[in-house]
């Protein structure tokens, strides 16, 4: 997978001296992206306020955001770490329950009504943020508890043990009330008193934050250690990477973000039921990651978007949706195991730098043709 990267940048490197290449300084890169994110958030919010986006569309958009977080977080464990956890929905449910139980009980204690969450006050904002963090931490703790025994195992065993843990989480959520003797998760009847606190702004703010944190982690030395484990665990260990630590780290971070997504989900739908977070949900998230390209954040985000909106647009075909997922999963594995985007990730700064250097696909092609290298059409 990695050796295919040069295709993207080969053109730039192949011609001219390296020092002739103009680059953007890091602060500028971050600033450009931050401004873009802000613009998208503000424009989206204005469109919702102005009524250009109906509530139906904004609810679907919120779900898109939630699935993006789920896919991006699973991608950390699957694409970057190279393991196959089958219990991602379990982490999501821990986060969802943790967050909503926190919000419900704290708002009771503080005397905040459900209506206040719709209008939004500083107290509710603090409650929601606190709840999301609590949800994330609960999920991270679950990830840690699962990760320590699970990560001693490899491949299939890890897959099955995470599946088992997710099932245990589901059973616990169903029956914990009876054991503790207090009303906590609402059991089978579901947890119903959740205020609807999720909004476009909150969800996509979280999406931006999750993507940013994931990106920076993967570009740091911790990220490189995680990638090294994926590529060859024994070699990584031999070069001094603490594999247990980094495997657990990736696992816990992945679980944390899934928990945040769970919290957002609770606030979006307003009712939680353990059965929702079953094996099927884990598979749905996995399909997004596999289809998008294991190891590509853009791929995960794109396929999460498409796979959430498409069923809404194609309600008439909903009967065939699940079977289509299965066929896609098999075909992608046989014909394009690295997923649609492989490990490619989009970088705006890189594009801008190319433009600054006048390094366009057509100029590259011309340059290559000049050099007499018969590489073939770039678009083929």
């Amino acid at each position, binding site marked *: 997978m990695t050796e295919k990267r040069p295709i993207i940048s080969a053109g730039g490197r192949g011609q001219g001296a390296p020092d002739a290449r103009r680059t953007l300084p890091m602060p500028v890169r971050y600033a450009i992206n931050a401004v873009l994110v802000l613009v998208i958030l503000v424009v989206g919010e204005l469109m919702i306020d102005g009524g250009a986006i109906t509530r139906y569309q904004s609810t679907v958009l919120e779900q898109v955001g939630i699935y993006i977080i789920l896919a991006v977080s699973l991608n950390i464990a699957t694409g970057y770490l190279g393991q*196959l956890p089958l219990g991602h929905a379990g982490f999501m449910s821990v986060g969802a329950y943790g967050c909503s139980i926190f919000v419900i009980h704290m708002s009771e204690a503080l005397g905040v009504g459900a209506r206040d969450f719709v209008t939004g006050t500083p107290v509710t904002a603090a409650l929601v943020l606190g709840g999301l963090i609590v949800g994330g931490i609960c999920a991270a703790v679950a990830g840690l508890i699962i990760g320590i025994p699970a990560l001693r195992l490899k491949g299939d065993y890890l897959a*099955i043990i995470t599946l088992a843990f997710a099932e245990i989480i589901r059973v616990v959520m169903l029956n914990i009330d009876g054991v503790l003797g207090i009303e906590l998760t609402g059991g089978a009847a579901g947890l119903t008193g959740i205020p609807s606190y999720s909004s476009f702004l909150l969800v996509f703010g979280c999406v931006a934050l999750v993507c940013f944190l994931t990106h920076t982690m993967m570009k740091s030395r911790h990220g490189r250690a995680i990638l090294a484990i994926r590529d060859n665990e024994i070699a990584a260990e031999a070069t001094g990477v603490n594999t247990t630590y980094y495997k657990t780290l990736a696992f816990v971070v992945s679980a944390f973000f899934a928990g945040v997504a769970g919290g957002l989900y609770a606030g979006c739908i307003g009712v939680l039921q353990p059965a929702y977070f079953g094996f099927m949900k884990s598979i749905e998230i996995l399909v997004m990651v596999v289809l998008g390209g294991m190891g590509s954040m853009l791929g995960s985000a794109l396929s999460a978007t498409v796979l959430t909106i498409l069923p809404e647009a194609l309600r008439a075909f909903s009967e065939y949706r699940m079977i289509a997922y*299965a066929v896609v999963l*098999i075909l992608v594995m046989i014909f394009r195991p690295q997923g649609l985007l492989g490990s490619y990730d989009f970088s705006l700064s890189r594009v801008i730098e190319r433009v600054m250097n006048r390094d366009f696909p057509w100029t590259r092609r011309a340059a290559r043709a000049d050099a007499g290298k018969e590489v073939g059409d770039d678009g083929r």
Partner: protein
Amino acid sequence: MDMFLSQMLNGLQLGSIYALVALGYTMVYGIILLLNFAHGDIIMVGAYVSWLVMAQLGLSPVVAVLLSVAACTLVGVLIDKVAYAPLRNAPRLSILITAIGVSYFLENGAQLVFGADAKRVPAFTDLQTIQLGGLSLSFPAVATVLVTIVATVALTLLVQKSKLGKAMRAVSEDMGAARLMGINVNSTISFTFAVGSALAGIGAVLYAMAYTQASPTMGMMLGTKAFVAAVLGGIGSIPGAVVGGLIVGFAEMVVTALGLSVWKDAVVFLLLIIVLVVRPTGIFGRTMSEKV
């Protein structure tokens, strides 16, 4: 005392079905190190074939048994040829994801074709209850236990004594070396899938006899539990699968009999986690060191 004996039989019946399914897992895993997620769903196919033959076509139970086993065998081999064979040299993760895809495909395909509602498989025999001393034993329970014993013995003989069994053991030991020794690796793998799936077919018939229903998702939990059984016993080992199946069956029975059936699944999975952490190779498993 009567109740104790009846409960033992209940545990034995449940454990026997898990054991039969676990044998299929163990054989496939033993030879190509693939966790065949679709194995449970092959049982679902078998149960639907039983239903089709008896309820829809009105044929005799004997035909139903034969066709169910044949259909399972065919589906098992077909899955291997279509989905797994192209990935023989791919990373383990890819094959595992494919297996999940196949399982998902079978479940949703069955739902599309037969509908989400369960289908009722007619009784295979009029004999429902056997009176033995003061005990009334359910016939499906007795049949399940007996068939499982016969199947396990036959399978052991096949693997240990026959030429094909020798080839299977050789391929699972070292695929490359087996090929050099003149063993047709691909047909050996296909044969393994056929045997494993035929066992699933027998399991399907026994399942349909005891629980009388076929539903699209019936294979999922059954398959997962049977996999737990295979891992408990030590994956790749035939006696391990049987012992693992019985352990899971009895564990479920005991938890349920104690009135804690809510925690049944949790206990089974907890058992798996404990075994994996304490002794990852299972009870009868061999340790394999990874080559660098």
